[in-house]
């Protein structure tokens, strides 16, 4: 009795088809004209067209959405990593007054529903004049991304033996030199994974980014949910826009495939 015999490729196959079918349908639609989408029904585009993508890349109303989203996501990743790295080091190496409470408090912010924060954030960022800027969304998303980064990084850092720190200090390294020259290269994969997860959770979030922007920093999610025009919904362009939001994930997913579970489980797998 071989344990491999328990595994059925058919189950995996069906599951993957179930996952891919809706995405395939979106992809299929993005290559069709609106006339074809509404008129005929086919598994493949009859008249293959890139028109929908051309529309997105030439209309500032569309492509600015991607640029805006990218901007706040990148700012957010940089802020989150910059503050989370030293904090995660502290949590993984030292005990100090209130460390457990602080660690728990961080977790509650990862779990907090954005809906609770939408209204106060709107007022807070309006009152300090950041409403409708990249900074508002980037800072708002630190609410869940900083706790996430601290937790994931701490999970990676605890895997590095403490003797390395001590040896480096004995050899005369200062804290900053040690951290930059020795410690960061050791947890490079952890930093990469954390950056990926910050990127992703900021990229997929809709409610806060939509509430905190109106015109200048409007995110792609907000653009997509407001596409109903006088002539109805432009399905082809909407499908193309959806496909383009999936692309960043596809580009990097291969490199983090072995750490996906770890990232989602806050570094605890």
């Amino acid at each position, binding site marked *: 009795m071989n344990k491999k015999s328990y595994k059925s490729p058919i189950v995996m196959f069906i599951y993957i088809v179930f996952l891919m079918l*809706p995405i395939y349908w979106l992809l299929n639609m993005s290559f069709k004209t609106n006339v074809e989408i*509404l008129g005929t029904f086919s598994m493949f585009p009859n008249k293959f067209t890139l028109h929908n993508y051309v529309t997105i890349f030439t209309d500032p109303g569309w492509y600015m959405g991607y640029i805006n989203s990218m901007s706040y996501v990148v700012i957010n990743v940089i802020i989150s990593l910059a503050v989370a790295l030293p904090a995660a080091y502290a949590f993984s190496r030292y005990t100090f007054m209130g460390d457990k409470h602080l660690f728990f408090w961080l977790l509650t912010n990862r779990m907090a529903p954005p809906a609770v924060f939408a209204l106060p954030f709107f007022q807070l960022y309006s009152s300090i004049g950041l409403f409708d800027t990249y900074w508002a969304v980037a800072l708002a998303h630190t609410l869940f991304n900083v706790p996430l980064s601290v937790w994931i990084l701490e999970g990676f850092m605890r895997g590095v033996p403490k003797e390395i720190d001590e040896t480096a200090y004995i050899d005369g390294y200062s804290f900053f030199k040690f951290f930059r020259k020795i410690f960061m290269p050791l947890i490079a994969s952890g930093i990469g994974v954390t950056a990926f997860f910050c990127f992703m959770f900021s990229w997929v979030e809709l409610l806060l980014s939509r509430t905190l922007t109106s015109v200048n920093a409007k995110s792609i999610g907000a653009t997509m949910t407001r596409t109903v025009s006088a002539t109805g919904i432009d399905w082809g362009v909407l499908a193309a826009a959806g496909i383009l939001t999936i692309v960043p994930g596809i580009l990097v997913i291969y490199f983090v495939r072995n750490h996906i579970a770890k990232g989602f489980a806050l570094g605890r797998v």
Partner: protein
Amino acid sequence: MNKTVNQKAWFLVLPVFLLVAFSAVIPLMTVINYSVQDTFGNNVFSWVGLDWFEEIIHSQRMHESLGRQAMLTTIILLIEVPFGIFIALNMPKKGFWASFCLVVIALPLLIPWNVVGTIWQIFGRKDIGLLGHTLASMGIEYNYAQDVLSAWITIVVMDVWHWTSLIVLLCYAGLQSIPDAYYQAAKIDQASRWSVFRYIELPKMSGVLLIAILLRFMDSFMIYSEPFVLTGGGPGNSTTFLSIDLVNMALGQFDLGPASAYSLMYFLVVLLVSWVFFTVMTSIDKKGAV
């Protein structure tokens, strides 16, 4: 790892502390402030004590949203957890196909939540969607925009599509950590498939499974974007979950007092579950990495 006591470590944590205090404490103070006051505009506020809390606790609207939310979360967990475990057991262990499956099943997790809504909005439509069209041509009544049952089924299927992979990935990670010797011992004992699962696999992945369940519970409890795009809370109010209801109240009608009281009670539930989560995490940490 035994840690040393070092109060100076606070300086390393300080940036995080200040940043999170800025984006969590200030907003929460605003909410608390509004929850005990009433306003007639012009920034004139009057103290109303706990009136808003009483109103919300007794309001039909909150009860219904909470009921719908509880029902959705229960259904989702009941489907996704066994299904996820089942898929994880069928994942290839190593080699090219393992990587391939990992990448492909993780894909739905990386799609923006509003796009998930859009995908299913299109997929389920009778005129242009594959699912809707197929069902219609088989003569099945299905219209998620008008029929309550259809809307619910679509949302549940959408969530299963979106999030089962998370449970699969976590359980798979747990299964990977089981040494081959365990399986060999089971083979010698001629253990049945069920007992291998019950006495080897399940205990070994119980830690990660618990994390997965709690994460799914929390995330489904704050679901907003997907149903918002798909059904907008309708038909009627039948898919208005807690977050949608709260956003309507706070940003749609701008009822600051009731919305804040609502927020605080919502947040309290979250706090409670977070605490359970934290306890689980720390007990797993003590036992050693899974």
